């Protein structure tokens, strides 16, 4: 059994000036590329497959499998690209930004290995625009890496060339969706593309492209150094490795806890000092607002990709948002729905219109003007969004509403009852006048 906390990605965070190259090099930094650049590309891809590394951006797709979709030849007319999704914006998610601020070189080293494995000579880090300090740290780290010969031409005499471009976004949640991100990186509105073709066939500039999350790629150097068996000593068979759980909300000690996949909320709450002021838990998300809400009955669900799915939710980004009894579920759901309405890109009708009307129904309900019928209307609208939208934003928008009604229907009904009572009161007043 691994320890309750397994600092791998976070192991350098306590070191002074952890973001500098000198610190990184003192703590085994840039040793994995020396190892990796000597090996055939296929061997690196196989290693990542064997390790069972699954995408840390929410979907959990096996990274090695994704890499293997890239053409295994080099054609100068069809350059390959690696794009890092650093557009962290899923509500509750706050792992990639601190990772890039504390240890940007681990991401860069991962980019070098992944680019090499996929025969890409240009890598883009697409980072959301609202995180200036993080962007500054990335630029500084990339400069340091060029100066030290870890980037540029003929890296460490291997014959491999790589350029990294840090690209700041401009405020659009949808750009976290990989094809919207590619459109945005091409200088367009960030709207998702129809798949297929998948990015490995036609991605950035219609060239073979892989889009990976920050945490996924930052994990790669450790797997190269430690091997797949070492990696599998943490986590579960189908969800191996350590994962940064971001615990926020009504807990005593919110923060970043890197633990083996499969850790439960009960265990995380213990690490985080329990519920704030002892006020009991009401609901929580396992991985951001797009993952269906869970309740106090789900404290022992193993938080890995399988466990979260079996409990009727998803692991998502392991953004554990914890809400206590004081928070109204319809209110929370209304706030999230406004978010999805604002961030819907407008490309497809179910999402654009659906989130717009859902927000209005919920606002009405929270203001005490809802009816029981509204609950059915919302579920009906959700049914017309889920699986019928262009991308996963629509599915995400449905999650808090459907799960909120599933577990807390009484709260929605109570708001309607109040309204009904008011209506009949005013009817009586009218009759007696």
């Amino acid at each position, binding site marked *: 059994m691994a320890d309750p*906390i*397994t*600092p791998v990605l976070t192991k350098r965070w306590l070191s002074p000036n952890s973001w500098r190259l000198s610190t990184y090099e003192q703590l085994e930094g840039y040793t994995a590329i020396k190892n990796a650049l000597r090996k055939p590309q296929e061997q690196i891809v196989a290693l990542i497959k064997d390790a069972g590394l699954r995408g840390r951006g929410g979907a959990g797709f096996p990274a090695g499998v994704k890499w293997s979709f890239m053409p295994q030849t080099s054609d100068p007319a069809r350059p390959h690209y690696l794009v890092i999704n650093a557009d962290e914006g899923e509500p509750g998610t706050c792992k990639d930004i601190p990772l890039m601020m*504390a240890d940007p070189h681990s991401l860069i080293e991962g980019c070098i290995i992944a680019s090499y494995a996929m025969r890409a000579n240009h890598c883009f880090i697409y980072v959301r625009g609202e995180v200036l300090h993080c962007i500054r740290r990335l630029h500084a780290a990339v400069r340091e890496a060029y100066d030290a010969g870890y980037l540029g031409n003929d890296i460490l005499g291997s014959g491999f060339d790589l350029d990294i471009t840090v690209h700041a976004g401009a*405020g659009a949640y949808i750009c976290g969706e990989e094809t919207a991100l590619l459109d945005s990186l091409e*200088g367009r509105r960030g709207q998702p593309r129809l798949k297929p073709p998948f990015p490995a066939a036609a991605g950035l500039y219609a060239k073979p492209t892989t889009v990976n999350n920050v945490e996924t790629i930052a994990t790669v150097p450790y797997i190269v150094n430690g091997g797949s068996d070492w990696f599998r000593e943490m986590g579960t068979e189908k969800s191996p490795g350590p994962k940064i759980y971001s615990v926020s909300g009504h807990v005593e000690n919110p923060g970043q806890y890197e633990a083996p996949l499969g850790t439960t909320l009960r265990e995380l709450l213990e690490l985080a000092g329990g519920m704030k002021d002892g006020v009991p838990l009401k609901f929580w998300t396992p991985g951001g607002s797009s993952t269906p809400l869970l309740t106090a009955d789900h404290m022992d669900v193993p938080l890995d990709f399988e466990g979260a799915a079996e409990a009727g939710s998803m692991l998502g980004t392991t953004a554990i948002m914890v809400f206590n009894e004081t928070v109204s579920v319809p209110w929370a759901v209304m706030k999230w729905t406004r978010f999805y309405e604002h961030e819907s890109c407008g490309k497809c009708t179910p999402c654009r219109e659906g989130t717009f009307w859902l927000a209005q129904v919920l606002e009405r309900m929270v203001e005490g003007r809802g009816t029981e019928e509204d609950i059915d209307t919302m579920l009906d609208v959700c049914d017309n969004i889920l699986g019928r939208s262009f991308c996963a934003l629509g599915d995400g928008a449905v999650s808090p509403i459907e799960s909120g009604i599933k577990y807390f229907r009484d709260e929605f009904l109570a708001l309607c009852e109040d309204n009904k009572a008011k209506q009949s009161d005013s009817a009586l007043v009218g009759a007696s006048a």
Partner: protein
Amino acid sequence: MTESTEVFDADIHAKAAEIIGRYPVARSALLPMLHLVQSVQGYVSQEGISFCAEQLDLTDAEVSAVVTFYTMYKRKPCGEHLVSVCTNTLCAAMGGDAIYKKLAGHLGENGTPLGHEQTSGTPGEQGSITLEHAECLAACDLAPVLQVNYEYYDNQTEQSAVELVDALRKGERPQPTRGAPLTDLKSAEQQLAGFFPDEEQFTADVDGPSAAEETLRGATLAQDRGWVAPAMRDEEANHG
């Protein structure tokens, strides 16, 4: 001479060319270039749109379509500082809604609260502040958070937020909880375009604090308790 060349000097033209040089396809330069034009005027003006269109051989309409899609591009002149309060669900529940409401009232005039993306004071002048509510800013463990010019001020209260904007109005620049010493929105936009101050200042900025107690809680707990990840074997990782 077009209007845009009167607003944007040779230095900005050179920077625009430099941005284009970072990408295999010129149009990819559009987002950073829009940050660049905001660094000049504090918003994306019609001249700014024309400037980008000229550099990238696009139409004004194509550039406008992009500008209006992204919330960070402002279409009206902004204050010296942009104050963004997270009002997404978690921050809102922890006090973010109350902070936003308090600031809107505090910065408003004659009993009218300041609206979203409205400016207190004369845009561009010292002490002027544009206020906005923002979606999740990826700092939920530090909720409720707000940002000034995209630098983080963590664990805010109504009182601390009022004190912060009052200081900004007086021309002071309180140090962010995490980030470089505060400058102004235009300087921040220039950095978002990928242009940083000289080496000495840049190093100082980069070394600005980032590791909040919350960020380090897991790592600290592990250190205190002696918890570690499984040891890697000495021999080079081998696999077949």
